[in-house]
């Protein structure tokens, strides 16, 4: 057997995660992030049905794509411009269960917005998750600007813009990718294609099977990946991040995922998706898939999984209890944070000021 053949045989025998440089411990962390995100997500729907959360919007079915991508980033160094399905992504970047639940309950201590925004409108400066709006795709130029600033300041930072396939129809997406391509910015655009923009199917959103086909038009690399396979997404993301860090420019990743829930708590996808399609989709659970892989690789056992699940359930319950007990925002704070400095109330109508910006800027 030649040396080359030997090497190939060794690679073939090497588990996929090992080939990606992921240790068993790292896999367990990633799995836990997925389990925790799923548990939080399911719990918030219960809270919605109980009338405790007026609105929820979900990321169930997207967890593998998000956790696989986040595992290629350095929390607190690299940036995430997320969208409303990125619960697992944000957990993996450093948001806690408690912080998320404070948002679901719209409490004053919600770090994303102090209860001002709908749940899942993420934002956490500590974890470099930028604040997001509901107007999709506006975050993509922000990610490009972050990447431009990193490049021009000589900082070794990567910006990730995350969004759904429907958002790629908007002008901001095009404008931002064009800009990122022109300047070969350290940017990764992760499209989580779950086939539906609320009710509008992929075929009415774009004329190509994969939005990654457009990458060439922006002078960047495009990759299509099975978003239900956490390791496949990680591999694509790892390459993209390496490309970004080494000055070779942006990457467009199209991760094909499944949207397990309706668009939001105000939607019912049974109205526009065939029953067979929904049943088939639910059989492709990325969490189940990763679990089976970990069991096969003996990274996980039924017993350790049971313990991990219990731990996550407990963490979620504690987060719920804490959020429920946390104080609501004070109506008197309605006028806070319009501007940095307090302006004369007779002039602006602004309330209490914010003198923290000097140190932040």
């Amino acid at each position, binding site marked *: 057997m030649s040396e080359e053949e030997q090497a190939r045989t060794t690679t073939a025998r090497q588990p996929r995660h090992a080939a990606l440089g992921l240790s068993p411990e790292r896999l367990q962390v990633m799995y836990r992030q997925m389990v925790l995100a799923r548990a939080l997500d399911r719990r918030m729907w219960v809270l919605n049905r109980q009338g405790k959360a007026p609105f929820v919007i979900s990321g169930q079915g997207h967890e593998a794509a998000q956790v696989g991508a986040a595992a290629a980033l350095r929390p607190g160094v690299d940036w995430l411009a997320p969208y409303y399905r990125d619960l697992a992504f944000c957990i993996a970047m450093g948001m806690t269960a408690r912080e998320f639940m404070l948002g679901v309950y719209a409490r004053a201590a919600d770090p994303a917005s102090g209860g*001002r925004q709908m749940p899942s409108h993420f934002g956490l400066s500590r974890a470099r998750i930028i604040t997001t*709006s509901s107007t999709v795709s506006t975050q993509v130029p922000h990610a490009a600007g972050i990447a431009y600033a990193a490049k021009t300041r000589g900082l070794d930072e990567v910006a990730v813009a995350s969004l759904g396939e429907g958002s790629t129809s908007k002008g*901001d997406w095009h404008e931002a990718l064009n800009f990122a391509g022109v300047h070969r910015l350290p940017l990764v655009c992760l499209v989580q294609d779950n086939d539906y923009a609320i009710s509008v199917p992929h075929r009415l959103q774009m004329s190509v099977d994969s939005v990654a086909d457009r990458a060439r038009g922006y002078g960047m690399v495009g990759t299509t990946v099975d978003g239900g396979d956490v390791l496949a997404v990680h591999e694509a993301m790892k390459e993209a991040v390496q490309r970004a860090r080494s000055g070779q420019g942006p990457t467009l990743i199209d991760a094909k995922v499944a949207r397990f829930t309706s668009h939001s708590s105000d939607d019912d996808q049974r109205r526009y998706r065939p029953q067979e399609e929904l049943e088939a989709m639910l059989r492709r659970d990325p969490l189940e898939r990763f679990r089976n892989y970990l069991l096969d690789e003996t990274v996980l056992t039924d017993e350790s999984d049971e313990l991990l699940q219990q731990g996550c359930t407990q963490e979620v319950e504690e987060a719920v209890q804490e959020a429920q007990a946390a104080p609501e925002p004070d109506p008197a704070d309605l006028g806070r*944070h319009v*501007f940095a400095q307090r302006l004369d109330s*007779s002039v602006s109508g602004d309330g209490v000021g914010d003198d923290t910006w000097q140190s932040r800027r």
Partner: protein
Amino acid sequence: MAVKTLIEGVREALTEEMERDDRVWVLGEDVGKKGGVFLATEGIYSRFGEARVLDTPLAESCIVGVAIGAALNGLIPVAEIQFADFIHPAFDQIVSEAARIRYRSNGDYSCPIVVRAPFGGGVHGGLYHSQSVEAFYAHVPGLKVVIPSTPEDAKGLLKAAIRDPDPVMFFEHKKAYRLIKGEVPDGEYVTPIGTAAVRRQGINVTCVAWGLMVHHCLEAAEAVAPEGISVEVIDLRTLQPLDRETILRSVEKTARAMVVHEDNLTGGFGAEVAAIIADKGFEHLDAPVTRVAGPDVPAMPFNHPQEEAFLPNPEKIAAAMRRLAAY
């Protein structure tokens, strides 16, 4: 003190601020080698290089969106929108994003950007190179709206805008760029945002304006002075935050008030000024608050007679002053 044009004031502010703070970053269409279509950034590219003066793709939403992102990561972007008429594609980035970043993040993030744009007519700019857009943005909490009318203020206010921790819309009247000359102090100074200037003292009529219209109002005030009509002219300088006190103090003295703007009448910022005077100064008034503004047509025509017909000018303003004084 040296006499300079308004656009020189803009240019000096940019240059000095870029020298003072290497986080200040200019971006926009044609702002680089060309120095901008009005030459507001002339010489800045050769001085600071492409890393700090960037010619962007022709995409306004991208310009503002990228500026917001860069601000989140430590830069202080000064974005130029080539003409205020072309700012509308960036409306979403300005209104939904820049204006709300501090508020919606509960103070966790801020957005220190400046968006500069030439506005206004009288230069045969036609429908798409003449518009006044200040009312759209003055309506939006979270934005500051600044409109200088003198070279001194153009410099001092732009410096203040660049140092401001919040997003500032900075509108420069394009006809005033070279028409308006004035003394600019030597050395370092900053003009605070949020304070109006009384450009002419008077006792019979209060006349509120901004941008080039301030100069038309001063000319009109001069014209009616021999008739015994003493007009106080207030240059707002910033529409948001608005210096209500200076307006109301003047109305208390004159008992008659008018607002002049180039933007069309309905829903223009003059309506807000008039409402404030009616609300807070009613007991001092001897006459209804008057507005002189562009007509409610979609935009300013290119041809000379119709452009003239659209624009407020010293004659139209003087006529309104006489009517108001006689009421």
